[in-house]
């Protein structure tokens, strides 16, 4: 075998494979502290801020779901608003049947997951670009279908029953805690999925689909699972939306703007990383608040920035931070440590990825 370097063969005990560059135990503790602090927010801050945080939670959930689909499974959906709307409407319908919206949220989320299965079957055979538009068509079709029923508000919408007995500040607090819980759950779910076998299958598919299939990976199943989980997440976000707005209107919950927000948050924050959606959501909220008085400007700016980032800084803001500081809060890759490189591991998988152009990561 011709060799590229001149080093002699090394014994195998000298190699180590780890999941992260540094000891990640402190990150777990840190995350726990962050969650505890966040849980205390309603006691510390005004309810206006708490409401804002709920909005942020919704965006984080949506963004991490969209990132799961696009960044890891390569499924670009511009129709996730279908599940946002379905989640909101499930909560509405359940509330009309006397189930408290807080209790209705998990049911609505699971309902969306169930609904996702036949929808997946319809569109899974389409290639990426046409898959994308098909999701949009489906979302629109679902909206049109729901608008036919005046009992849930028809075309104009309806307010959410079942929450009028609560004290307003307490309501916001409860909403906030539920939102925090769902957000944490979403992030943990995504993290666990990607660290496990699903993550391995998806990465293999992303690198070389034919090879992945022929080595036995259940590609179709993995993708469907991702789609369903994303539906559950988006449904939960939609339910949260309904609870926080106290009104469900088809034009507001089914608008493609949700996809725009999700997608742009992910791109700007960093596609294909778990930390990215969080950063992107923060950026979105900041942008929205700053440009609030300028109507549609924030979407224009968001769109332009997203295009710029997609073309020139593909790994987004988190990618830039990651490159400088070598941090992964949620490590899902593998690092190869060789004897010479005890302080800085070899390129491994991510290094290769960083070098490739023209791939969909």
């Amino acid at each position: 075998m011709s060799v590229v370097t001149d080093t002699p063969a090394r014994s195998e005990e000298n190699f180590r494979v780890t999941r992260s560059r540094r000891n990640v135990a402190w990150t777990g503790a840190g995350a726990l502290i962050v969650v505890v602090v966040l849980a205390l927010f309603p006691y510390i801050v005004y309810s206006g801020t708490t409401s804002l945080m709920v909005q942020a939670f919704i965006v984080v959930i949506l963004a991490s779901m969209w990132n799961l689909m696009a960044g890891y499974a390569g499924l670009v959906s511009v129709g996730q608003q279908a599940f946002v709307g379905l989640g909101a409407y499930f909560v509405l319908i359940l509330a009309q049947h006397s189930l408290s919206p807080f209790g209705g949220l998990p049911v609505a989320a699971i309902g969306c997951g169930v609904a996702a299965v036949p929808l997946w079957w319809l569109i899974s055979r389409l290639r990426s670009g046409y898959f994308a538009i098909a999701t949009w068509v489906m979302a629109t079709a679902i909206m049109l279908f729901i608008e036919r029923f005046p009992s849930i508000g028809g075309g104009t919408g309806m307010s959410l029953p079942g929450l009028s007995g609560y004290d307003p500040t307490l309501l916001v607090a409860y909403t906030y805690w539920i939102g925090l819980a769902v957000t944490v759950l979403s992030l943990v779910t995504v993290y666990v999925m990607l660290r496990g076998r699903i993550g391995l299958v998806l990465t293999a598919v992303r690198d070389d689909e034919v090879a992945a299939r022929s080595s036995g990976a259940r590609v179709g199943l993995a993708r469907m699972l991702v789609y369903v989980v994303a539906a559950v997440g988006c449904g939960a976000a939609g339910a949260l939306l309904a609870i926080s707005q106290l009104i469900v209107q088809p034009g507001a919950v089914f608008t493609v703007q949700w996809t725009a927000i999700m997608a742009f948050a992910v791109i700007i924050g960093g596609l294909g990383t778990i930390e990215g959606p969080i950063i992107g959501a923060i950026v979105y909220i900041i942008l929205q608040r700053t440009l609030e008085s300028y109507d549609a400007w924030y979407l224009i700016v968001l769109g332009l920035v997203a295009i710029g980032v997609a073309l020139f800084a593909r790994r987004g803001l988190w990618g830039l931070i990651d490159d400088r500081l070598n941090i992964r809060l949620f490590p899902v890759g593998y690092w190869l440590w060789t004897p010479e490189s005890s302080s800085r591991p070899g390129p491994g998988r991510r290094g290769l990825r960083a070098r490739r152009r023209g791939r969909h990561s």
Partner: protein
Amino acid sequence: MAWVNAIIQGILTGGLYALFACGLSLMFGVMKVVNLAHGDLAVIGAYVALGVITVTHIPALWSFVIVVPLMAVLGYALQRTLIQAALDRGVLITLLVTFGISVVIESGLLQFLSADSHSLGVGESIVTGSFSIGSQIQLPYLLLLIFVVAVVVLLGLQYFLSLSRYGRMIRAVADDQEAAQLCGVDYRHVFGIAAAIAFGTVALAGIAYGMYSQFSPTTGTDTILLFAFAAVVIGGLGSLWGTLLGGIVLGVAQQIGAQINQADQVLAGYLVFLLVLALRPQGLTARRAQS
């Protein structure tokens, strides 16, 4: 008789939908780009036509003479810059960039113009007039004209692709980009030409729609993009005449839906789309099932 007229209207509307769809189909066939901004470009065409008509006072029917070449040039420029840059970075980035362009266009239109609907004023007689066959059957002038234009455009495209030098290059690049390079063909330039054609036809479609119905900043995605896509899928990917068939099926389905329940017009079309997707995903004209 209302049913017969509805079906006729549906068939003729199919021409408009085919006009929406052929640019989308072309861009996908040649460079594998699904242009999510496709519908919004039609709306831009309509707005530009509105502006041109307001400024120059030419009859609405002739606005295309200025708008179509303008949009074609825009298409070439956008393709050679933004879209090519996105293509070089992969399928995902391309989708995201076209989606981004779509959102920016819509938000921009909403911001700088209003959310109001407009229409391209054509003479009253053209919009409302129709041929009568017998005493009951009506063939609306405008729709008939649009249908004829659509057929002419499709014919023109077909001849261009099969007989002309550039058409041959476009087909060659669509088959094998690298091999075309080895023959001295700069595929980026060919992509630009294809995009120019796509933008030009979709601008024409936008003008046609503007005369037939009302348009607003969100019409691009609400109506045009989704209808175009539905027409392509129903008819069969990769076939120009398939998009006409798809458009006709979509139009007829919508009109039948409207007959049953006025509010269900658009939904009926999408239901047929979902049906085709479920039962025959390769479309009505394709011979083999796609894997």
